[in-house]
């Protein structure tokens, strides 16, 4: 089995993270034991359908889950194994320590560059604010730094653009501003939550290239959330496939595409349009809809939609979780195959 070397420093280790939303309608387990690692200079792609917990994962790491959501278990270790190791899950979300992590250690890039920036302030104002939040510099220095950031993310004429309002910029430029803002505190970890979903294909390619360049320059640990297998193929080193708040498969990117082990991953890959398909061939879809997380199916949560069910066990028992850091799938069929081998 091909294993990608993981010599790079582990920047963040998520272990058995559980997040619940309690409401009058009942308890929704948005995340139910999620584990993965982020490594400096590498990209972890997180993929899955809407509602699988991708964005909640991102917000949990930054401790900005909206009420009534709260972390009910697990650890999020920043700098694991070093003397500075800190468990983000144990911090008070309003503490100074946590606020230094937000933006300072971990930057966040958003899906909607239009709504993620406030229309009431210039882009300069919003970036300078982020710069000054994490370093003790004068307004003048912060402004120069902001111009520098805008230049870094490839915005032409940054000296004038700094006084522009977000609604005066195109979607692609806005997303670049969003990236500049995420980098303002010089974080080693960047979480990009569907950074290209709202953009057209050409702009999408430019933004992805920009993210790759910045990652290489700054040795950033990138967590890339997407539902787009194409983006995963282009960007990710490792892939975590999520379904209903759990990681159902984890593997290096080549392996996911060459030999997917979980039926859900296989179904996702079949649903990718291909130019090799014969004309008028219907695009494969995954039958059924994602169940509401409040009414999670028993056993393997994917079993009602699974075309490769092996029997009652799928409906009754929960498959073993993917061991963190190793390639694997949370599936009885995969377990059986492994035992046979």
């Amino acid at each position, binding site marked *: 089995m091909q294993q990608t070397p993981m010599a790079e420093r582990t920047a963040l280790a998520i272990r058995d993270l559980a997040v619940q939303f309690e409401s009058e309608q009942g308890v929704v387990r948005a995340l139910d034991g999620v584990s993965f690692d982020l490594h400096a200079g590498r990209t972890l792609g997180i993929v899955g359908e809407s509602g699988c917990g991708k964005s909640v994962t991102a917000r949990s790491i930054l401790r900005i889950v909206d009420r009534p959501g709260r972390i009910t278990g697990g650890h999020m270790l920043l700098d694991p194994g070093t003397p500075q190791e800190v468990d983000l899950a144990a911090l008070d979300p309003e503490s100074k320590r946590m606020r230094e992590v*937000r933006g300072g250690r971990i930057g*966040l890039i958003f899906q909607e560059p239009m709504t993620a920036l406030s229309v009431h302030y210039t882009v300069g104002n919003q970036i300078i604010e982020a710069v000054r939040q994490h370093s003790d510099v004068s307004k003048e220095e912060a402004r120069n730094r902001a111009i520098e950031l805008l230049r870094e993310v490839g915005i032409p004429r940054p000296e004038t653009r700094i006084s522009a309002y977000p609604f005066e910029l195109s979607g692609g430029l806005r997303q670049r501003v969003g990236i500049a803002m995420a980098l303002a505190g010089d974080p080693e970890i960047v979480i990009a939550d569907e950074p290209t979903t709202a953009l057209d294909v050409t702009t999408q390619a430019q933004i992805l290239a920009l993210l790759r360049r910045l990652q290489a320059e700054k040795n950033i640990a990138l967590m890339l959330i997407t539902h787009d297998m194409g983006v995963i193929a282009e960007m990710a080193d490792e892939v975590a496939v999520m379904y209903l708040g759990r990681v159902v498969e984890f593997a290096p990117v080549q392996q996911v595409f060459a030999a997917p082990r979980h039926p859900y991953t296989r179904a996702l890959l079949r649903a990718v349009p291909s130019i090799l398909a014969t004309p008028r061939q219907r695009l494969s879809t995954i039958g059924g809809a994602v169940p509401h997380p409040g009414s999670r199916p028993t056993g393997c949560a994917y079993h009602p939609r699974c075309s490769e069910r092996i029997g009652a066990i799928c409906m009754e028992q929960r498959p073993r979780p993917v061991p963190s850091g190793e390639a694997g799938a949370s599936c009885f069929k995969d377990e059986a195959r492994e035992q046979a081998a």
Partner: protein
Amino acid sequence: MVIYLLRRLGLALLTCVFISVLTFIIIRLPPGDFVDAYIANLAASGSSVSVEQAQAMRQEYGFDRPVVVQYAFWIGRVLQGDFGVSMMWRRPVTEVIGDRLWLTMVVSVAALFLTWMIALPIGIYSAMRQYSFGDYLFTTLGFIGLAIPNFLLALILMYLGFRYLGLNVGGLFSAEYVQAPWSWARVWDLAKHLPLPAAVLAMAGTAQLIRIMRANLLDELRKPYVITARAKGLTERRAILKYPVRAALNPFASSLAYLFPYLVSGSIIVSLVLGLPTVGPLLLQALVAQDMFLAGTIVLLLGIMTVIGTLISDLLLMWIDPRIRLEGR
């Protein structure tokens, strides 16, 4: 921005013209004209006017000309500051209204500021702590505030103020200053009398604005830019005050203009109860007595002040929202 301003100004002027036409119609609405009423009035008090005199008056006021000319006559006089004569008081309308217009503005603006000062923080608190004990408490108090008639509250506050605090309640001035010319002492006296009427008038508006602010802010809090602000590492307080609160102020500023006439018309009974020398009670009396020059003038002035209020709220909106400021850039 200049275009926006010019357009607003043009619209404001046009609105003023419409208001003046409406006022003119109101003044002319009762059967007969001013001279008929004047003669009837004089006859009632024993004196009489000859037909020639009446004719001369009609000519002077232009009542024998077509309606459009009459309007031109009237508006020409109004522009020179001559609003006609009040039938009821037999004195020029300007004299009757006198300080009342300014005092109305002072009371209304005081009530407005009080409304904002109370409603904004409570609205923000209620939205940030939605469904908390405090939110429910303020909601309950707010609805009670909406439900209690203002004049009842005025009476209760007057009683309490007089009985337990020994306050000199009622009116806007102490007895010795009522007729006194303006001086710093008189202004200070006014300031001392202002809190009670301002509080009474502010109450219903406050309850309403709390609900508006709470709803606006709840909408804004769900927007992604709030997450951006938090993800930067800002404190919750700063993230919310700088971004969503600013956005939630938009509807606030645009409702400013409507609050003013609301305060004036809503304050008539309160003003009567509290004995406030504002235009509200005067308008009521004028309407009851069919003193159309007085009533028309008050309606005209209130209308124009509302237009000015709208203009101010437009300027505020420009200041708050760069999308409006930069329109057409």
